[in-house]
């Protein structure tokens, strides 16, 4: 339940940042900083037990939401990046605790992971289409 809440928070914060930055054209810094600030005020107030964790997750996802449109062209890309951020956050809770920039590093790793997965899928698709065996199968059929 907690993991689902963390992933859902990450998706919401990531999407909010991405939309403010790219659809409302307010810039990545203002988008991320405003989402971070609002989550830092709202989450501890509305979720007394898990508020601190959720505000950190939201800040982390907002750093991921600063990704450029060239690297994450659609909202689906942003949802996937945010989901990876949520998962990675739960796995790395104790790693480098207290080191400034830890959350941004989680966001960067998540972005690279998703870009890698997407590019691999595109490359595999191209290879399959260009495979002579696949064509011959088409001919024989």
């Amino acid at each position, binding site marked *: 339940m907690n993991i689902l809440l963390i992933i859902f928070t990450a998706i919401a914060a990531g999407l909010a940042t991405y939309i403010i930055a790219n659809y409302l054209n307010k810039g*990545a*810094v203002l988008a991320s*900083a405003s989402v971070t600030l609002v989550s830092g005020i709202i989450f501890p107030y509305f979720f007394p037990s898990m508020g601190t964790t959720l505000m950190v997750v939201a800040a982390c996802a907002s750093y991921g939401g*600063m990704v450029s449109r060239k690297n994450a062209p659609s909202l689906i890309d942003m949802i996937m990046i945010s989901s990876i951020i949520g998962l990675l956050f739960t796995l790395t809770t104790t790693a480098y605790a207290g080191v*400034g920039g830890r959350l*941004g590093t*989680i*966001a960067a790793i998540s972005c690279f992971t998703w870009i890698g997965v997407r590019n691999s899928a595109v490359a595999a698709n191209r290879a399959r289409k260009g495979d002579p065996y696949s064509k011959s199968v088409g001919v024989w059929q």
Partner: protein
Amino acid sequence: MTMDKSKIKILLLAIGSTSLTWMLNHHFGLGPIVASGLIGVVAALFIPGALAGIAYTSSFVGMSSLTVLPSFFIALLGGLIAGMVIIATTEVYAGIGGKGGTTAAAATLVTKAISGLIG
């Protein structure tokens, strides 16, 4: 690395942003998330273009706990190192979300190592 006017501006901005975030975080008790968010919003509203990004990136260093950046002097040092890392890595991985945080983490770990040597 030659020092021109823009690089000095970046270093001063990084030092100012990191130390301010550290002050808001620890002295005023706002916590790291609100402190960094506040610095980011102010920077985005009042500082032009890329410099706002530099201020926001440097503010991540100021989010460090007291075990990592134990004093205001070390926070100033962290800002200086963050500025140097930002200058050195301007072209690297532009457009990747979290690039600023990774830069800040590198600067923070270097600062922690140096402060450990100082004692």
